């Protein structure tokens, strides 16, 4: 677990990348996440999370199409690595385990 060092925000971005699949590039990720979190995010925060995760080996990327709107600049499409999937699954499992170990709360949440 220790080696992964996946921050909370990074995890959110990573999940968004996975969810968006083929269209996962900067602005799209930002748009998607802003909608889900219901708050404004800066390009800088998204980009730095992406770059950091790329360095850590959670993401790979390749250039995609260029559009007129982008001033002829190509998009960079991100995709999660196998390692990332593994870590995400691990994290989910750990969380689920923790949730289950809180009997009162899980019952309560169940009743809602």
């Amino acid at each position, binding site marked *: 677990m220790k080696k992964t060092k996946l921050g909370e925000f990074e995890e959110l971005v990573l999940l968004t990348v996975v969810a968006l699949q083929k269209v996962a*590039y*900067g*602005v799209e990720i*930002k748009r998607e996440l802003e909608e889900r979190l219901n708050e404004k995010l*800066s*390009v*800088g*925060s998204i*980009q*730095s999370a992406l*770059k*950091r995760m790329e360095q850590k080996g959670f993401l790979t990327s390749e*250039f995609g199409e*260029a*559009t007129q*709107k*982008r*001033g002829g*600049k*190509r*998009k*960079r499409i991100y995709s999660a690595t196998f390692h990332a999937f593994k870590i995400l699954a691990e994290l989910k499992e750990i969380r689920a385990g923790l949730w289950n170990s809180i009997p009162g709360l899980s019952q309560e949440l169940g009743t809602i």
Partner: protein
Amino acid sequence: MEFHSRTFPRIGDDMSQPNDTKPPKWLLRFLRFFVKKEYLEEIEGDMEELFHDNVEQKPYRRAKSMYTWEIIKLLRPILIKKLGGIHPIHLNQYGMYKNYFKISIRGLMKNPITSFINLFGLAIAIGFSILVYGFSHWNYSMDQFHKNKNEVYLATFFAKRDGTVQEFGLTPKPLGEMLKKDFAQIKNVCRVEDENVVLKYENKVFHERIRYADPEFLEMFTFPLKWGFSKSLQDLSSIILSEKMSVKYFGKENPVGQRIQMIFENGRSKSFKITGVAEEFPEAHTIAFDFLINFENFRVPETGFDLHDWNKFVNATLIQVDHPSDLMAIEQGMEKYRILHNAAAPADWAISYFAFEPLATLAKRAGAIRESISSGTDETSVMFLTMVGGFMLVLACINYINIAIVSAAKRLKEIGVRKSIGATRKTITVQFLSENIITTFFALILGFIFGIFVVIPWFEDFNHFSMGFTLKDATLWIYLPALLLFTGIASGLYPSLYISKFQVVEILKGSIKFGKKNPLTKLFLVFQLILACIFITMAVMGTQNISYLAKRSWGYNERQTLYVSLPDQSSFEKLNALMLQDPDVLSISGSRDHLGKNNTTAVIHLPDHQFEVDQLSVQANYFETMGLQLAAGRLFEDHLETDKKTLVVNELFVQSLGLKNPIGQEFKIDSVQYRLIGIVNDFHSYSFFTKMKPTIFRVADKGSYRYLSLKVRPGTENKTYKSIQARWSELFPEIPFEGGYQEDVWGDYYEQMGRGASALRVVASVAILLVSLGLYGLVKLNVTGRVREFSIRKVLGAGIRDIAYHITTQYLVLLSFAVVAGAPLSYVLVKLFFDTFFTYHVSISYFGVAIAVAILLLVVVITVSTQIRKVLKSNPVNGLKAE
């Protein structure tokens, strides 16, 4: 929104950007500048796409500012280019500077003692420089907070006194009102007058000084109110308090609406309603008020008040114009007032011409204006402090230079290597300079903390004032980097030029032995010793001066006398009758003026010129009560009506006029002839700050007595003081007692002198500390460089005397040079200093210089002997084993 953004032309946008759906070019350039090359295409595209989205939804301006914000938020370490590093496009010297930085930190760590000397010395000097800055800033910002400072002027006049033309801050009474009528350019006029009154609120009764002013006062000066309205000053029975006075009478509560009773000097009283409290005044002010009431109230205490009397004066008349250029016309129109005044006033008080002093420069010039409303700034202290601060910096910089030159020997190899792999002389110079600026930077931080938390509080504490030092002051943040650069370059320039001069081959061959024999190092040391000599002499003489001043006679018996200030003429009779019964009281006198409290001036008419003197109107036995000594002639006789036309003068009077047979000579004052009948020894009416003046005594009318003075039996001063106070409160329960021991009339003069001397001692101690630090560093480096020599000497049987001789000689030679040059210089400078700052002081002797030399000798011997001890204790084997 879309409709809006497309229909309206976008005014004010960048004209070079006809297609406004593009983000601003310069921002794009900035983006390209800092984003890593490999990320640029993607991020640039993202930004542009986002910008387009925003432009479609929002006005262009908004989209642009959002774009700017996004760019700023992109400034993250992971996204921006590495400085230097793999892509050395910009700032490619970065790596080099990083190395310099590393080397300097290592250098500081490696030689903790020399680093400490440098840092500590510089920090102390910088601490003092911060004080110098704070104090000068405080002085130069005096009264600068007034918004109208350039449009408000004080009316002054020039008049001839004692043969010189002097400027006065007073103005004839009718001037203010006439100015307002006659000049359309004058927006506001304000007359100001001050008076002592008694104020009463419930059971609180105090003597206070109130200020009469026209309602425009609060408009012309910037004194915002905390509570109430400044317009309320138009009402005749309104009073506005300062924050301090509000606290004094009412604590923290809002006193607006309360009534306060005022008892004027003639016993009449009037009730005032508090309609305002001023906010706390800025620290740097010379004009303020305790209590402010409408000028027209002046009619209450002065029943015969005549506003049209050109022969009477008000304390100040201020005018406000719309623009400073309007003043020219007003100045030209002042001639008619001059004629009006000179027609009404006696010839002695003739005005030469009127002038105007802007509020902005009033405080600075106040020293040259007599009886000015502004108390003025303290230029000499600023100069003195600047000098001391400058000398401290010089001392610290010299320490640095000396140590840098001497310790350069250790870094010869480094310089050789640097040079052989391509460093030029310039880069070596830059290296050493930047190292130095780093050291200075640390010193600046230390010194800043030292200045703010130690030096400034110390200075404020013993001078009993607050200079309102604040970090929010913008010029401070210019001063600090300037100080850093100045100190860094002043201390580092010479060593870096010196060190970088050497040839690689010679360095690497080892044929250079520089550093140890630099004549400049010696010169600097001598210079430091001279500076220290001056400071020490000053401190010694300052300390001696205190005991001198304590012993200096006042010229009369101040220890055995008490005085009481009287509200009116009847009170003298009552108190006199009661106190005469007291067996401890030896003599009682009444007087209109009183030594150490006040005096008037008179102009003596001589055939060829006029002569201004101090004048004291007293009862005949005043001399006996106060212990003034008769030198020649006789004193006033009590019941001699003819004595009303006679004068008793002091010796200075006779001297100043150069009279041969003074007794019996006649003098004309205000067109009345007076005959000189007696001469008393010179005396100090006011503290030793004030120069003694030619003084005349006249017999006072009984009705004019405002002071009662008592001579008491020695040892009963305390008892009598209490008994007067008790009698007073029986006689006049309404009026607070005002009086005391004659000894106390100079206020905290002696205390102030004592503080001055202790400040000099502190400065001298710091100077000694800096010199000994520098000397210690030099001696240490010298001894370490000669370890082998001393080891060999020891092996060959050298004893303590021999070793001590070889280490000490050169320093003693330097010290004797310093003494030869420094002793006379110290004498001259210290004399100059005392003549500038003290009117009366101890005669400067060589004693102070001798002490200074002795202290310096001691410092040198102690500093050097620590190293001698080290050499003696060391094992010669270790010294020879190296290399």
